[in-house]
């Protein structure tokens, strides 16, 4: 149904935008091991995105590439957290922590979806995301507990990204129409926050208490950097409409 497609689109866009951003690091990471690790994570996310967009497109006869390359900014459904620019390695890692912990809880629950395709995608993705959580957690511990500089950068990254967590738990109207199919975002709040708080605690970091950003990605309202990101991502495909690659 269009509602299921819209739901899959949101999850798919989250994975796609995050994969696109992580892809930038391959050849630019702090050490070769991280070129490999971030590359793996980007590939996993791109895989999730492809499954979800493929599924989302079936309702309207569109391919994963139609959806990835030929939608405009306002038609994307990603949340602002994944749209946050890479920043330094600390920002990328903290963004990974927040996003992966959320995805882990989300996909864990989505396995019980009454929609078998969503349940299957969730089952497969969940195992990969566990590794993502572990990777981000280990790095947050290292960066927060490493040097003075790495700690300062990590604190800044946590402060700057925390405002975008809130949006992940908003129950927009679509969710009401997908009872038993979608996971109600607000029901993920407690577990996600408990895990994040525990990780920050282990790293000796404080949970920020600053502003909250309203977001609005699921309604097509996006963070300003999404526009240029899409311009770059879509430029070649759009220069050759109808071409096959």
């Amino acid at each position, binding site marked *: 149904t269009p509602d299921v497609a819209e739901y899959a689109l949101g999850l798919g866009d989250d994975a796609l935008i995050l994969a696109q951003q992580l892809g930038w690091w391959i050849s*630019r990471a*702090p050490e070769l091991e991280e070129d490999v690790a971030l*590359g793996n994570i980007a590939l996993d996310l791109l895989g999730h995105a492809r499954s979800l967009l493929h599924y989302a497109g079936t309702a309207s006869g569109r391919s994963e590439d139609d959806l990835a390359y030929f939608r405009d900014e306002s038609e994307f459904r990603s949340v602002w957290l994944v749209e946050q620019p890479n920043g330094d*390695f600390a920002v990328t890692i903290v963004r990974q922590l927040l996003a992966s912990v959320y995805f882990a809880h989300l996909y864990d629950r989505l396995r019980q979806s009454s929609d078998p395709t969503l349940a299957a995608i969730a089952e497969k993705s969940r195992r990969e995301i566990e590794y993502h959580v572990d990777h981000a957690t280990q790095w947050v511990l*290292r960066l927060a507990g*490493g040097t003075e500089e790495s700690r300062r*950068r990590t604190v800044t990254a946590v402060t700057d990204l925390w405002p975008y967590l809130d949006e992940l738990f908003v129950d927009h109207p679509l969710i009401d129409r997908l009872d038993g199919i979608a996971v109600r975002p607000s029901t993920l709040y407690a577990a996600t926050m408990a895990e994040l708080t525990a990780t920050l605690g282990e790293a000796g970091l404080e949970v920020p208490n600053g502003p909250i950003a309203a977001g609005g990605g699921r309604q097509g309202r996006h963070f300003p950097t999404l526009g240029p990101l899409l311009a770059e991502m879509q430029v*070649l495909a759009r220069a050759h409409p109808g071409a096959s690659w």
Partner: protein
Amino acid sequence: MAHNETTPDEAQFDDLIARDERIEPRDWMPDAYRRTLVRQISQHAHSEIIGMQPEANWITRAPSLKRKAILMAKVQDEAGHGLYLYSAAQTLGATRDDMTEALIAGRARYSSIFNYPTPTWADMGAIGWLVDGAAICNQVPLCRASYGPYARAMVRICKEESFHQRQGFEILLELMRGTPAQQRMAQDAVDRWYWPALQMFGPPDDESPNSAQSMAWNIKRFSNDELRQRFVGMLVPQAEALGVTLPDPELRYDEANGCYAMSPIDWTEFHEVLAGRGPMNAERLRRRREAHENGAWVREAATAYAAKQATATREAA
């Protein structure tokens, strides 16, 4: 000990080489052998690492999600190859810090082919088909190189490289089956990469004096010109299958000599690029240095954290 006398170590080394067996890290080896290997392996590692850049240039713009995934995986594989090769060089006593430092300071070489730019998507195809193709011709014999860790690293690398070559071929095939603009893009990329790929095998045999010792040590197995012939022989039928024209009007199979006749290679540009005056030499090193410097605080943090953890563990014990 007289000058020309052979020590037992030397005798054993010579014997292993003569029987085409593997030298392992614990074995004695001549200094020159060790130095040659360290130079060759680290140069190869640096080529993998620098070689990530021309392709990384298109990760964000890959024209389909499938191609994006394949390209990401490929560039990531190259980082992995860099790691295997660093490990192999480390078994010879080289340190990763020293090798990295030499690369960034511009003292270490890497394959000159990566000093060319990748202005179009078709370059992803041409690099896979031509550059990885040439690399495989060079590298397959290295899977039997006399130094064990190097040979084993090359086995893994070659397996992945031939995968990459096929993917490059597929990119070009898809373009050649596509729109006229896509076909032009593919032919243009082949035109730009063909000669530099042939130059990857190095100078003609009669101008390559260093090869003899490497062949005697079973590090190198075939001469530059032999490998180049083998490569062209592989390309010709594939170019026909693709429908692209190889940019050498003289190229034809010479039945009499059993080899390909080709135009003389113009080495002027090659030497310009080798001398640091290629299009991308400065940028390749600048960007590697930038990644290294931007990552310094991360590596320092990891080291400091590991030290603190070790102390904590000791104190708890």
